């Protein structure tokens, strides 16, 4: 269901084709470098220099390379903390460099799926531990003592018995002469001795951010650089027929203006029939400043061929959905038991229809890329979450060999899944190649909102049967989504294991697909960001229909402790229970509340993490909604790597969800988006953000990520709270307060 390129990279981490080995080597000036290398020992220190994971210089400076891109999720800081902890480094001597894309050395250089922590927690600590072991070995040899008698602290090796000590820097050159230890022989620290992991740590770029230091993609300058805008057809799937290029070329500062025909059909149609990441047709305008390029765009007159989807609108899509609901689902996703039979004999039947809109990512830093393509080589500076796919896309589209493509990852002003798609990079490459100069392509906000890979909208019709005790015995769901030829569009699918499937004896999940040209893709917690709202809302409806307390009902439905089929090693009902119990206690669930005030609860298992949330809301008689507070209980395993960043991610996930509940909806008309800027698709701002409280449930499981899991249950927690407050069920997002009025 995720974009195929992302799946491929994630798969490569899980099932590597090359064995990774730890290698230590010497670097210029007597430094020690240690890293994981997938290429074996023929890799020399010289060519490895740039991308060793850790380098210790004779002056004691420690450079740690963050291999994953930083999009605000705290990767750079957390990855370095993992290495520095086991290295027993003095954190104040650590500097962190962002790696370039280098698939010969690094695996999984991406930011997505909340996978940074689970994929790296062990290998990064092993790098740190191996480096420490080498330094100890060098010290022990020098002092003629046993390695086991040596200890380390803050970048110093000690031999307490003889009162000897040596700084890491002084040992680096000697340590570089030894072979790195076999990872299997490394003894990692007992977490109770952690000094860096688990300590709230300020982000490594924060000091630069508050001073306005240029660190983002949009800030990149290279000598001789020109600026570009790229105007695509506002209608998805459209292309250029003709344009007044001669007029533009005469405008101040304009260096060139030309039509880009665009890439191949298979690139556009790779993901369930929708427009996919690739070079779309359009008009490039290149100037000596961005403002001049964008000003020239305002004078642009284009005749477009609007293509086959020019009539698409919210109304046309809703009408198609309506028609599909009148027919049986065309895709059978799950069919267990005898659902129709169980519905007939159920003591009570509950039925509802839910729908949610398309949403755009609107990263605050608009899409941009600086590219220099010349002499069969390409160099990029870009905010990207998936540089490996960018490289492949450029190689495919421009016919450049992979080895001749360099990608420098800049800090990203937000990602949220948008920058897993690298359309802006291939555009920049094409424009640079055409004008024969380095080019910074910057999208306007209108480009960004009008050409996103949107979170797909969807419609659900659900019918459930309860037995005489109110327990669900049957669940029949028809999902109208997007795709082509029985293949879901990117991130528009529904897993047959979606909870509560494993807890109800008779279940039908079916889907029917609408074909459209609208591009779709991953937005934070892809799939779950909408589906959890549908499932958790309807479970809440069942609880009320059964006359039961919704939180108790959720706990009863979870049943006995076991693992149900699901991502990772499965969906743990015990961990789900753990977060629900915790949030019950945090929120004072069950307390008496003022009139028209209510508590709502929801939970989910998403991207290997468990989160349960309670919202307290009140609804005025005119429908005005006030969210008083959100409580979140989160289980991402036994260790929080950086509590500072972790809490921030949770708060951000909650706020992001509130934008879905309260504000955001992309509207289509005449084959294009109606919205052209933040107005009409606003992320929530301060007045809409309630107090929030986050607690971590530390369970004995491997640490996992936090970018995604906290977000999805907030939406149903709020809408369930609205029902508790005023008896109105929100079945369409975002909330229209008028529908809540008495």
């Amino acid at each position, binding site marked *: 269901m995720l974009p195929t390129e992302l799946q491929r990279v994630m798969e490569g981490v899980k099932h590597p084709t090359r064995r990774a080995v730890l290698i230590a080597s010497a670097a210029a000036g007597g430094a020690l470098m240690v890293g994981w290398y997938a290429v074996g020992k023929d890799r020399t220190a010289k060519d490895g220099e740039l991308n060793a994971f850790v380098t210790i210089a004779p002056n004691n400076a420690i450079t740690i390379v963050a291999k994953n891109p930083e999009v*605000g*999720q*705290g990767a750079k800081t957390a990855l370095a903390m993992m290495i520095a902890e086991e290295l027993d480094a003095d954190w104040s001597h650590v500097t962190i460099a962002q790696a370039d894309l280098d698939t010969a050395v690094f695996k999984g250089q991406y930011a997505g799926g909340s996978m940074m922590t689970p994929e790296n927690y062990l290998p990064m600590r092993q790098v740190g531990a191996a480096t420490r072991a080498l330094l100890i070995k060098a010290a022990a040899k020098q002092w003629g003592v046993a390695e086991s008698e040596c200890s380390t602290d803050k970048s110093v090796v000690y031999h307490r018995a003889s009162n000897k000590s040596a700084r890491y820097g002084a040992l680096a050159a000697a340590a570089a002469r030894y072979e790195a230890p076999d990872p299997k022989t490394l003894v990692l620290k007992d977490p109770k001795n952690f000094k860096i992991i688990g300590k*709230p740590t*300020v*982000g490594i*770029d*924060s*000091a630069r*951010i*508050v*001073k*306005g*230091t*240029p660190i*983002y993609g*949009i*800030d990149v*300058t290279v000598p001789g650089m020109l*600026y570009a805008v790229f105007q695509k057809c506002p209608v998805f799937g459209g292309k250029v027929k003709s344009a007044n290029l001669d007029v533009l070329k005469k405008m*101040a*500062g304009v260096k060139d203006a030309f039509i880009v025909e665009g890439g191949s059909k298979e690139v556009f149609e790779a993901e369930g029939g929708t427009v996919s990441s690739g070079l779309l047709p359009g008009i490039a305008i290149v100037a000596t*400043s*961005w*403002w*001049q390029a964008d*000003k020239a765009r305002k004078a642009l007159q284009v005749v477009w061929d609007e293509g086959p989807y020019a009539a698409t609108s919210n109304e046309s899509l809703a009408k198609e959905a309506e028609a599909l609901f009148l027919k049986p689902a065309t895709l059978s996703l799950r069919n267990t038991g005898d659902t129709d039979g169980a519905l007939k004999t159920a003591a009570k039947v509950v039925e509802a229809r839910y729908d949610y809109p398309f949403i755009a990512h*609107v*990263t*605050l*830093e*608009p899409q941009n890329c600086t590219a220099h393509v010349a002499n069969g080589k390409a160099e990029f500076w870009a905010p990207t979450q998936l540089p490996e796919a960018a490289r492949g896309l450029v190689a495919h589209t421009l016919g450049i060999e992979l080895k001749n493509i360099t990608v420098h990852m800049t*800090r*990203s*002003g*937000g*990602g*949220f899944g948008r920058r897993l798609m690298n359309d802006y990079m291939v555009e920049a490459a094409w424009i640079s190649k055409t004008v024969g100069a380095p080019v910074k392509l*910057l999208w*306007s*906000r209108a480009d960004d909102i009008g050409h996103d890979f949107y979170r797909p909208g969807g419609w659900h019709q659900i019918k459930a049967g309860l037995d005489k005790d109110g327990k669900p015995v049957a669940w029949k769901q028809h999902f109208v989504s997007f795709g082509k030829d029985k293949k879901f569009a990117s991130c528009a699918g529904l897993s047959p294991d979606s909870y509560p499937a494993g807890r109800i004896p008779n279940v039908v999940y079916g889907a029917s697909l609408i074909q459209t040209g609208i591009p779709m893709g991953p937005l934070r917690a892809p799939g779950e960001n909408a589906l959890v709202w549908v499932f958790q809302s309807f479970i809440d409806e069942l609880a009320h229909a059964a006359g039961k307390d919704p939180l108790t009902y959720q706990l009863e439905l979870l049943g006995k402790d076991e693992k149900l089929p699901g991502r990772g090693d499965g969906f743990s009902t015990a961990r789900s229970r753990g977060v629900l119990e915790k949030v019950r206690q945090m929120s004072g669930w069950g307390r008496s509340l003022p009139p028209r005030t209510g508590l709502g609860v929801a939970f989910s298992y998403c991207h290997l993490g468990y989160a349960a949330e309670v919202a307290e809301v009140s609804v005025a008689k005119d429908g005005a909604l006030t969210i008083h507070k959100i409580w979140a209980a989160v289980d991402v395993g036994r260790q929080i790597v950086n509590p*500072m*960043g972790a809490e*921030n*991610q949770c*708060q*951000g*996930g*909650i*706020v*992001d969800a509130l934008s879905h509940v309260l504000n955001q909806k992309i509207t289509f008309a005449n084959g294009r988006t109606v919205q052209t*800027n*933040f*107005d009409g698709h606003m*992320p929530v*701002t*301060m*007045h809409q*953000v309630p107090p*929030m409280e986050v607690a971590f449930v530390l369970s004995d499981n491997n640490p996992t990520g936090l970018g995604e899991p906290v977000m999805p249950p907030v939406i149903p927690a709020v809408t369930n709270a609205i029902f508790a407050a005023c008896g109105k069920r929100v079945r369409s997002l975002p909330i229209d307060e008028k529908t809540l009025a008495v």
Partner: protein
Amino acid sequence: MQYRLNVNGTDHSVEVDADTPLLWVLRDAMNLKGTKYGCGAGICGACTVHIDGEPVRSCLMTVSSLGTSKITTIEGLAHSPVGQRVQEAWLKVDVMQCGYCQAGQIMEATALLTRNVAPSDSDITTAMDSHICRCGTYTRIRQAIKLAAAKEA
């Protein structure tokens, strides 16, 4: 056209079209990249600078309208004691996720604390509500403003 601008206490000469917004003069003509482009329409606040001490959206302010105004950007903010306190508070609380909006937020917060040394919660909301933080760091923005205000007291 040639324009003379006073930015962060120094006069600079720039050659740009008369309708160029201050944002692009700062970023591309003067290489002061701290002021950010987010929407180009005065909605998001990422491009906020001070003009004669007042917070202004630089994406909507053309260079020809500036005259002899004194412009302060995030790069020059540390010259003001309030600005420095706000930057320190931002770092102490570690407000940032992606950090892209924070220059604008810090400029707005500094203007707020300059005119109101002890803002209430509702003063903070009123002043900051026109800024988008797409990562959702609003809780920490509020916390950092309170910390900066407390240091002043």
